[in-house]
């Protein structure tokens, strides 16, 4: 009996050992041509990286970072969530490739910046890197909390990605004073989505003309067109998914979340004038670059907020308290004609477990305005063609390396692997990864080098996809872009705006008053953080030369 027990015990030990050995080496295969195939966690999908892209320091039997361990923070989404999901999927393969170990530290969106700043400020140094939102950059760079990555980028030892894939609009948000600080990953920008099956339906177009007295302004060119169409459809049951009336538009204005991004996207064409220079009235939006005077309550901004308040009337009343996910669900359930939001919407529409509108999607760069306010002459300019402004609104979640990390090279090797063409395409094709398209390798020829098959195999509807990619291509390569606010305190400036926007949305403040209060709050923030420092950062961030 005693002997039998021993045999069972030894057999169990052998089984555990054999399982462990079998697990090792399950996520990486070196091929005869020197390429390497990464096998994703759980899904067991295969991503092959050519020999010239994997980096010269890696190879069969070589694990240059063996025994090292790094911790990376990321928004909490879990193993199948946006932005965090790809880390989980590729962790085993990266660990086999490098020999290092990766701890994924998930944090709520609202907590990531405070938690990491506290960690750095107090010198705890628990984290080696952060998957940050672009607006964190000023908070991290100015106190020297993160390091530039130019040397690593030039090193052929690391996985290879090409900065030239990125349009200038995106490239800027990864850099600070001419140096690269972030490794690209996600590309955020808001585009306009609509129900193409409804708006292109001749019967609805005729009904619109009969009721309004003029043809439906579709495809939309201006925000006034969006408002007119939303007004017509709001309250009608134009979708037969349920017996209830549907909306013209849907937005999210729950405070302290992401409602202010709607305002930024919509207001840009009323405020930002294109041109070759950067000054108060050209390629500018937030502050006077000579004085740091807030421009948020200038007439262009006020007009835009008036339009936004008007547009919001054609959405559900409850949207004042809604967050991003609730708003997306409303659109995916077929309850709204329009939504203007991030690239996630396009890929979520393809997920038929959540979406009832696959194959019914239209998308374009956000519309423009026929009038733009000139902040030098203090006068409105009327244009023959609408002023259309692209945006990089959002986080464009990107990897940065902590200056306190003892293993910055290990951290960069992870980010670089995620930025390689095969891995980035794998992410963008699937969409659920939260990694949205923006680089030339994501777009179809002639704009880019991606293949239609890659997207179709991942489950995309071809019509939806073509609208989607064209919208993003037009957005990121637009002639005029909304400048991104990346200075120290960007979060605080935005929160002041966000709260006053919410007050305007519920009617407690008129648009002018809401923005006047925002301007006062911004001045106070600027003064407290040091006007000279803030001005210098702002000038550098938008490329202004005094």
């Amino acid at each position, binding site marked *: 009996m005693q002997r039998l027990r021993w045999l069972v015990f030894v057999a169990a030990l052998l089984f555990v050992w054999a399982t462990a050995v079998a697990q090792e080496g399950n996520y990486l295969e070196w091929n005869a041509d020197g390429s390497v195939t990464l096998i994703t966690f759980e899904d067991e999908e295969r991503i092959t990286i050519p020999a010239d892209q994997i980096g010269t320091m890696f190879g069969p039997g070589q694990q240059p970072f063996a025994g090292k361990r790094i911790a990376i923070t990321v928004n909490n989404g879990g193993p199948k969530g946006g932005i965090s999901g790809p880390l989980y999927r590729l962790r085993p393969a990266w660990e086999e490739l490098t020999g290092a170990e990766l701890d994924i530290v998930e944090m709520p969106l*609202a907590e990531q*910046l*405070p938690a990491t*700043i*506290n960690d750095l*400020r107090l010198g705890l140094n628990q984290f080696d890197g952060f998957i940050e939102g672009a607006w964190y950059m000023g*908070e991290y760079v*100015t*106190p*020297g909390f993160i390091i530039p990555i130019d040397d690593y980028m030039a090193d052929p030892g690391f996985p290879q990605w090409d900065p030239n894939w990125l349009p200038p609009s995106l490239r800027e948000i990864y850099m600070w004073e001419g140096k690269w600080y972030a490794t690209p990953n996600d590309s955020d920008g808001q585009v306009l989505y609509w129900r193409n099956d409804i708006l292109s339906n001749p019967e609805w177009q005729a009904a619109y003309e009969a009721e309004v007295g003029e043809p439906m302004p579709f495809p939309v060119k201006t925000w006034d067109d969006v408002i007119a169409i939303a007004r017509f459809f709001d309250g009608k049951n134009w979708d037969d998914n349920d017996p*209830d009336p549907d909306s013209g538009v849907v937005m999210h*204005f*729950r*405070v*302290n*979340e992401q409602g202010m991004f709607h305002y930024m996207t919509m207001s840009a064409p009323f405020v930002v004038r294109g041109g070759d220079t950067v000054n108060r009235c050209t390629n500018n939006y937030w502050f006077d670059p000579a004085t740091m005077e807030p421009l948020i309550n200038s007439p262009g901004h006020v007009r835009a907020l008036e339009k936004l308040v008007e547009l919001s009337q054609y959405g*559900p*009343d*409850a*949207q*004042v*308290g809604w967050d991003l996910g*609730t708003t997306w669900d*409303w659109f995916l359930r077929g309850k709204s004609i329009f939504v203007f939001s991030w690239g996630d919407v396009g890929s979520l529409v393809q997920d038929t477990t959540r979406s009832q509108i696959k194959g019914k999607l239209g998308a374009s760069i956000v519309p423009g305005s026929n009038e733009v306010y000139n902040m030098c002459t203090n006068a409105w300019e009327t244009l023959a063609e609408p002023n259309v402004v692209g945006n990089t609104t959002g986080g464009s979640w990107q990897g940065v390396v902590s200056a306190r990390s003892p293993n910055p090279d290990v951290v960069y090797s992870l980010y670089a692997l995620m930025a390689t063409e095969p891995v980035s395409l794998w992410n963008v094709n699937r969409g659920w990864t939260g990694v949205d398209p923006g680089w030339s390798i994501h777009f179809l020829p002639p704009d880019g080098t991606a293949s239609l098959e890659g997207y179709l195999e991942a489950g995309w509807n071809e019509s939806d996809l073509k609208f989607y990619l064209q919208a993003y291509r037009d957005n990121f390569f637009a002639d005029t872009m909304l400048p991104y606010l990346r200075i*120290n*305190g960007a*979060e*605080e400036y935005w*929160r002041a705006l966000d*709260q006053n926007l*919410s*007050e305007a*949305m*519920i009617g*407690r*403040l008129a648009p002018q008053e809401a923005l006047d*209060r925002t301007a006062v709050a911004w001045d106070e*923030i600027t003064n*407290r*953080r*040091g006007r000279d420092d803030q001005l210098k950062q702002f000038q550098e961030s938008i490329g202004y030369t005094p």
Partner: protein
Amino acid sequence: MTRNSRLKNLFLAPAALWVLAFTVYPLLYSLRLAFYRVNIGQSDVFIGFENFARAFSDGNAINSAVVTLIFVGGGVIIQLSLGILFALLFNRELPFRGLLRTIMTLPLFATPIAVGFLFFTIFYEEGGLINGLLPFKVPWLSDPSWALFSVMLVDIWQWTPFVFLVTLAALQGIPNEYYEAASLETSNAMTQFRFITLPLLQPTIILVLVLRIAEAFKVFDIPFTLTAGGPGASTQVFSMFAYRTSRRFFDFGYGSALAYLLLVAVLIVVLFFFNRIRQTYQ
């Protein structure tokens, strides 16, 4: 020092160190911060009482204080009234009294963060659990007044059982002989309640009031998850404002001053009621 007292000190040292490290030091450190302008990456600048003065001219701080006072005043009074009413009801013979009492106390054991998220779905305005049953839409979270009421409602739902439990225990501690003796003079239940039950409950009620007021002043989790302080700033309570100032905007000096102002306000209220308890006992 004798060997015995050295040994005592040795045993006390870990506890003393714990209190010094995790209570006294943070308190003193945040007190210091309250007198400085603190910007990350820059040296701290001593500014005296400027952070405290700023709170009295800051519209957001004043609004948060008003919201908190409404929340505390409205919520605690309703919790107290309902809790006492339920305790009186459950102090008599009822069918399934044990089961009902258990059900009554369940909200007390739920995590406030989870409760906030739960009610976020219950209050969903487009066909949520409540509005789906009503013939009209109640703007639970999208109207400023309703939103504050919703936050109070959830707090009342969660904390009324606490008042109920403590009051019920106090009621059951009142000797029956008092009522038997009183019944020789009067059979009027209201008179007995007024002259026997209420005076004997008074210390318990004041204690519960103090505990609930102190907790309600510090409320954070329910409004944080349910409304995030909105719409606008209609449900931004003081502790949430202090948290955001410090943790999201890294204005540690002003945030610390706000936290100390809240501490002082709670202390004043607590001392006032403790004084009442002392007078009652005397």
